[in-house]
């Protein structure tokens, strides 16, 4: 007991000394970090920079920009809830970030009002095209992911052994449902063209065509982009309904699908979303038939580099199969070359405009 006392006294004394020193240092050191470098900043949504999905991609885009131009310094702030969007953006405005990247449709309102209040501040927002006042500098980055989703649907349909594949989303935003809509279109196209007897679960498109800003229909949603347990439950349900490949469009929730596929055993696969599953989650590469990728990283990198060079252009950027702003990437499962050839043909058709990615053009074969 006595030795413990002595030890704790010493600890106490040491901490007092250190604490006082710390305070004095705080009081005396002069601000050293003069902001001469170009600073690129990202405000992530609640998923944070480790969501292995689009927030991670945006942060990686900043990292790529720093690699291309080492004079750029980068910084991020994660939001714990939507109440953090405004203060996070304000913090970066006060720190004179050269460009502020915000991630996701949910940050539309916060980005719009910040841009309107600070017209000279450059913004880039992923997955959104905000309506802002004239004279502001906001670049909306959007991606026609239904094009790559279509190819993903074909891949899933071609790989399915049980005759059913499924998709689900995080929340019914256009940026999410566009993927699901394209996926279902791809499955139906494959079903119709190659008489494969395969159906898609989890998304029923509404009438009419989808655009970047609206894509309606009914489907399965987990309600957020963070609850992996919900993703696992939904995926297990799809498996029990006869599906063997599931395409989660819900950021890190998709990791729940990976867990469900592992649990369900051989023959159950996952189609990853946003950025290559085998790079983001290498240990589960053998479970990924492919990834419907969104070119967040290259487009964010390009936006940051242009802002650093002074060539930043406000407006909108739309990623397509043609400009590689969205793409189908193969995963760790061996794909028959015949199927790859069919997908390549469809890809050329979509780029040429001869194949539509609207699922309503391919009625379900009964």
């Amino acid at each position: 007991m006595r030795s413990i006392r002595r030890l704790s006294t010493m600890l106490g004394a040491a901490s007092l000394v250190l604490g006082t020193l710390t305070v004095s240092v705080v009081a005396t050191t002069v601000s050293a970090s003069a902001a001469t470098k170009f600073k690129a900043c990202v405000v992530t949504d609640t998923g944070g920079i480790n969501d292995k999905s689009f927030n991670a991609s945006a942060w990686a885009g900043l990292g790529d920009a720093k690699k291309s131009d080492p004079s750029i310094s980068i910084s991020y702030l994660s939001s714990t809830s939507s109440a953090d969007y405004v203060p996070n953006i304000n913090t970066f405005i006060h720190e004179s970030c050269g460009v502020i990247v915000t991630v996701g449709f949910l940050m539309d309102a916060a980005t719009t009002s910040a841009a309107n209040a600070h017209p000279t501040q450059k913004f880039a927002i992923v997955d959104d095209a905000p309506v802002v006042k004239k004279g502001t500098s906001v670049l909306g980055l959007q991606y026609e992911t239904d094009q790559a989703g279509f190819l993903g649907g074909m891949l899933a349909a071609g790989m399915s052994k049980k005759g059913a594949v499924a998709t689900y989303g995080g929340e019914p935003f256009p940026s999410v449902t566009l993927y699901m809509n394209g996926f279902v279109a791809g499955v139906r196209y494959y079903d119709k063209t190659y008489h494969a007897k395969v159906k898609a679960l989890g998304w029923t498109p509404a009438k009419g065509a989808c655009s970047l800003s609206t894509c309606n229909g009914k489907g399965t949603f987990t309600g957020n982009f963070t609850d992996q347990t919900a993703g696992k439950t939904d995926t297990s349900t799809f498996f029990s309904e006869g599906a063997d490949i599931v395409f989660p469009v819900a950021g890190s929730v998709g990791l729940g699908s990976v867990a469900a596929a592992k649990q369900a055993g051989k023959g159950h696969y996952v189609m990853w979303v946003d950025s290559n599953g085998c790079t983001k989650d290498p240990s589960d590469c053998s479970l990924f038939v492919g990834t419907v990728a969104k070119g967040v990283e290259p487009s964010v990198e390009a936006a940051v580099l242009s802002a650093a060079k002074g060539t930043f252009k406000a407006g909108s950027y739309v990623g397509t199969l043609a400009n590689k702003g969205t793409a189908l990437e193969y995963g760790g499962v061996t794909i028959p070359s015949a199927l790859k050839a069919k997908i390549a043909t469809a890809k050329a058709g979509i780029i040429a405009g001869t194949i539509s990615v609207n699922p309503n053009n391919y009625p379900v074969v009964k």
Partner: protein
Amino acid sequence: MTEATPVRLHRRVWAQLTSQHPIVVTIFALILGFLVGAIIIMTTTASVLDAWRGIFHNWGAPGHAIKLTFDNVGAAYRTMFTGSVVDPNSLWHSLTTGKNWPVTLTPISETLTYATPLVIVSIGVGIAFQTGIFNIGANGQAVLGGIAGGVVATMVHLPMVIHLPLALLAGVAGGMVAGSVPGILKAFTGAHEVIVTIMLNYVVYAFLLFAVLSTPFQQPGQQNDISRTFDGSAQFPPLFGTASGLRVSYGVLVAAMVVVFAWWFLDRSSLGFDFRVTGANPSAARASGISARSVVVLVFVISGGLAGLAGFVQAASTTHEIDGGFLIGNAGIGFTAITIALLGRNRPMGILWSSLLFAALGVGGRAMQSQTGIPLDLATVIQSVIVLFVATPVLVKEIFRLRAGPVATLKLATQGWGT
């Protein structure tokens, strides 16, 4: 210390400083919290670690390592301070030129904005703690208050003088409803309030999703889980006008009024006295004719009402809308309130200072992360360590070898569990 032996002033001060007076313990807990934070910065910053690894390489190395440590720790805590209170350079500039006041005042404005709902909800939790009741459901009560206030703020259209107070009352009522359920269950069936309040949180979260996804409340033209925007007449206007860009709003006045109310209620009102007696000694309270049932129900109604008020104030002063993630997860002020109430020893003034400290750490942590790259989580670590030490005064007493002082016994702030 008898009257026969006059003690000199410095002796008396020293005796206070080395006693286990609650304030002394809290101050030492603060020191320990920042110390642990410093150690974490030191051990997680690569350049500092490298410098310490190389201290035997040459004579200058240890000095270099120490300097680097202080530079990094100093930069972290400095940005935390300038990001949450005031940047001295900016203040001097504003004072001498009269310009840039908004920039100078932004940090303190943010801290006050964050502290406002925290003060209100923590006082609610603190009142329950003083009565020996563990209200772990403050977060759910705050959410229901936010919904109820939000419904009035979006669907009723009135001039501000009526609309805002009405929405505030709706928020209070929402919290009271959520709070009365565990209160009644405990009073009449003996159900344990900790279990009931925790479980009720999830019920309220599910109701929140339902509310923001249902037609009258959901933002028209949106498919996702977001409410309509509050009417301008049901939002707290910014204290310094919209043009200043400072977010601190008239909500701070509500928080101030709650502090005064709580002080009056606990120290001056007879109901507050009943509450405190029940908390201090339930058997004595029963013996002296205080109805345990009505105290339990009333404390839950008051605690829940304050939580509901906090929920609405949070939404009406910052986001002006609520979404499916309102106060969920790390944003749950009702859970932060438990630690703040502990730190403030359940007293209104204590809670006020603790809320300001927690808000400053959160806001300053944001500035620290964006300027130095040290993660915001460090602020959470410091908060947790402080509360850990405050909740275990014996530990602080042993570390600093404090003597039993004027306040003879240290009451455990967490006592009351299971009563």
